[in-house]
Structures are given as structure tokens and as C-alpha cells.
């Protein structure tokens, strides 16, 4: 891929492939390409730069998850899709803050995308629950779980890091940690 292509707005299929391949550069180009559009929408409709950042990142995460789970079907331009998601998310926030005056100034054409933001809402809740549960779990359990299940490190490496004398001890520890994490996770409302 030439250098020139790497800096411009990525094509829609480039983005999808890039997400699937965890491409850092595509993600960056995608982010930079459409952020101004979303910023324009938010700051001209009672929001500020931070609101724009939150909404835009949430939209990117929705897109990301959808592509990763394989049920993404692009029925319009990616630009329109992202704009629609952000518009929907921002309307929701405005009405939550009681700042929604009944009309919104639009800068792009958009689609109705209700259920996708709803689905993402569930993911959000689980994400927050997991974050809280891990926080409550405390050290060293948190690190053990993160290392093993998220960073895919082997029990042997973890064993060495924590100075366990044998792998069995470490395994027992990890087992206990996982049980506690489950408890904490499901206890939350």
C-alpha cells in the first residue's frame, strides 16, 4: 500500500478489512476522517468537544463490535452510517439531560438506527459491570485474571511473575479468583 493511500479517507471496504485485521493505521485514518463531521453535529446542537469525543468513540465501538461479530452489513455509505449512529446517540443524551429543544440541526443525510444503539447499550452495561467487578476483586487476582484471560499469557509466565513455587498453587489461586469474579459480576444489578 502506498504512503499516499495511507493518509487519505479510507474506503469503506478498507475500513471493514482493517477492523477485521486489527489494523492500527486504518483505525486512525477512519477516526480522523469522520471526527470533524460528528464534532460539527454536536457543537452546533448544544454540545461541546468532549461530548463529541464520547459520542464519536461510542459510535466507532458500535461499528467495531458489529464488524467483529460478523453481522455488519453496509446498506449505505459508511459516513452516513456513522453520522446516523452519532445523531441517534446525541439525541438520546440530549433528552436525558433535558436539553433537547425539539429540533436538531443536521449536516448530513441520515438513516434510522434505533436497535443498534439499543444493542450497544446492553454491551455497555456488561462492560461497566465487568470493570466494576474487576475493581472489587483487587490484587493480585485482578492481574492474574487479566493476564490469563485478556492478555493470553501462559500459567507458567504468571507463575514466575508472582513467584509461586509451583504451577498448581497458581492454578488454585486463579480458580479461586475466577469464582470470586463470577460472584461479584452476577451480584451486581
Amino acid at each position, binding site marked *: 500500500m502506498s504512503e499516499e493511500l495511507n493518509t487519505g479517507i479510507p474506503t469503506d471496504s478498507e475500513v471493514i478489512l482493517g477492523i477485521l485485521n486489527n489494523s492500527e493505521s486504518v483505525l486512525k485514518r477512519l477516526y480522523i476522517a469522520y471526527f470533524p463531521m460528528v464534532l460539527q453535529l454536536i457543537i452546533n446542537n448544544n454540545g461541546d*468537544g468532549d461530548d463529541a469525543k464520547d459520542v464519536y468513540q461510542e459510535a466507532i*465501538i458500535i461499528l467495531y463490535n458489529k464488524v467483529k461479530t460478523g453481522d455488519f452489513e453496509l446498506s449505505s455509505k459508511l459516513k452516513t452510517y456513522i453520522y446516523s449512529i452519532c445523531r441517534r446517540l446525541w439525541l438520546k443524551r440530549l433528552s436525558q439531560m433535558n436539553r433537547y429543544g425539539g429540533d436538531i440541526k443536521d449536516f448530513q443525510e441520515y438513516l434510522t438506527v434505533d436497535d443498534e444503539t439499543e444493542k450497544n447499550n446492553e454491551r455497555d452495561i456488561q462492560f461497566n459491570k465487568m470493570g466494576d467487578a474487576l475493581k472489587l476483586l483487587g490484587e493480585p487476582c485482578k492481574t492474574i485474571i487479566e493476564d490469563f484471560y*485478556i492478555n493470553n499469557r501462559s500459567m507458567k509466565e504468571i507463575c514466575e511473575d508472582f513467584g509461586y513455587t509451583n504451577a498448581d498453587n497458581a492454578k488454585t489461586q486463579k480458580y479461586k479468583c475466577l469464582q470470586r469474579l463470577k460472584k461479584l459480576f452476577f451480584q451486581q444489578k
Partner: protein
Amino acid sequence: MSDNQLLEQIEKYLSGEMTRDERARFEILRNENAEINSKVTEHKHFTGLIKQYGERLELEKRLNAIHDEIDVHALEDELMIQPSFIVRLWRNHHSKISVAASIAIFAALCTMFFTGYLNNRGGNYVQLSEKINKIGAKTDQLGRTVKSLNPQHAGDLNPGNFRGTGFAISSNGYIVTDNHVIKDADSVYVQSSDGKSYKAKVIYSEPATDIAVLEITDASFKTLGVLPYSFKKAETDIGESVFTLGYPRDAMVLGPGYLTASTGFNGTNTDSTAYQVSIPVNFGNSGGPLLDNRVDIIGIINAKQTHVEGAAFAIKSNYLLKAIQDIPVDSLKKPINTNNKNALATLSRVQQIKKLQNFVFMVKVYNQ
């Protein structure tokens, strides 16, 4: 197999670290034992959640890193739509502007109202003539003030005309009124409700009860016809709804009200010859008949003695009957035949008054 070992097996199974044999054996176990099977799915789901959490965290970190490279402020300045000055002013301050505008309109209307701008102004001529009239009136007022300030002129004042009310006590022209109405009269005229004036003469007066009897002496007077009302001899009770007809001004005025006390009050003493009534009366009402609902005469209004706000007094009718009997026979040219029959009791108030008005007179008194 302990839970711990089972978990290890499950993890091995899920990560594909098992040998073929082990895997086959575990799958059989999984198929046979539903508990183990559900544990496998549960574990898979939960570790999936942990993984998702990690990925999301990672993604957010990446996005934040990208975001930090963007100059948001510069973009914001570039993308912010700057509405025109007026629009911005209105958006930021529209509530204040609305309040200010309504106050301004209100103030303007008030000013216009109080300065008379909203009144229809006739031309300047009208205003000027009004002014001249006012000045004339003021001069008159001044003259009067000067006169009243000079006590030696008091006797020179022309007392002018008095007016009261009277009503017929017989069909042949005897009329009763208050003594204070005709007191010091040089000449007395009575005027019927249709506007005809007749000369009358005082034939009897009783200052103690404030009753006076007039006789119409005018040649043009014909008989009045049968009296529609009778005179009540018994006392009337408090609370009875009563009314009077009189001439407080040029036209006959109905005064409805209630009998509020069985005695009168003349400033210091209770006066058993009178009723107190709650009827709006004026000086011109003096001498008018006080009638109850059955249109019996129960008294004569003598408003002049009233010193109490909102109350009037009426001489009781039995004193009137006594006064009629006391009239010296030699001053009567014709007999007085008071009526005992009441012809109006069942009529409506409007009909009653239509019949009554021919028997109620304005008493005009002239003295020099």
C-alpha cells in the same frame, strides 16, 4: 474430579490443548453429563465477557490516543456555525427580551391611558369650551364660598324648592306626606306620575309624628279611582320584605328592602312610632309609602330623621290612621274614605307598581 480439576479440563478443552483421545473422552463426558455441559457453556460465555472487556478497554485506549492527536479546538472554531449577531442575541437573551418588551408595552399603554391619549378627543374647540365651562363653574363656586363665609347674608339666601313624596289616602284627593317636607311652605303642588301638576293645600300637620295631610284643591283634579291598597293596623314583623316608591329625582324610583327593626331611632332615643328599614332612600323619598308584599301600607318613609348609615325610618301606619282620625272635621270639605280592600296582593311586583304609581305623587314645595 474436583471443581478445580474440572475447570482445568474445560479450559484445556476450550483452548484446544487436549490431545485427540482426551478430547474425545471429554466430549463423551460432556454429552453424558448435562451439568458438565452447562458448565462448559457458562465458562465459555464468561471468559468471552472478560475478553470483550479487555478488547474494549484496549480499543478505547487506542481511540483516545488517536483523539489526542487531533486539535479539537481548532476544528471547533472552524466548524461552529456562527449565527448572525441578532440571532445570537435573541438565542441567549430571548426570555429577558420578552419580559422587557412586555413591560415596555404595558408601560406605554399605561401612560397612554393616564394621559388620556386613548380617550376620544373631540377637537380643540370642545376642549376649549370645556375649559371655559370649568372656569365658569369655579367662579360660581368661589362666589358661593364667599357668600357662605359671610353669616349676615345667610338670611338672604333663597332656600329654593323642596321636593318630597306623598301618596293618596282616599280617592277624592287627600294625600299624606311628611310634615318636614311641607314645613314653612308658601305653596304646595303635587305632581302625578303622568306629569300633571295640581295645586294642593295643607289641611293638617302633626309635627310630633312628622305626618301632614294635603288636599288637592286644583279645579282640574278629578277623582283618582278606588285605592288599590289598604292600611295595615297591626305591627309588621322584622324581616318582612318591603318596598317604597318615591321621587328622590324627577322620575319615580322603586326602593326594595327589608324591615330591619320594629323601632326607630332619632339620634339618642328609640322611637316606637317608627320602623327601621334597610332601603336606599334619599331626601326626595320622604313621605313615600312603605308597603309590604301584600301591598298594604305599613308606614311612611321619613328619611330626613335618619342619622344612621344604611338605615332609613318609616312612621308606622297606625299613627297615620290615628292622625287621619284626628283631623278637625271643619277642615275637611269631603269625607276621607280609606280603603280596607286590597286589590293587588296576588299580582306580580311589576303589575303592583303599575297600579300603584297613579297614587304616588311628587310633592313640590315653594317658599320664598
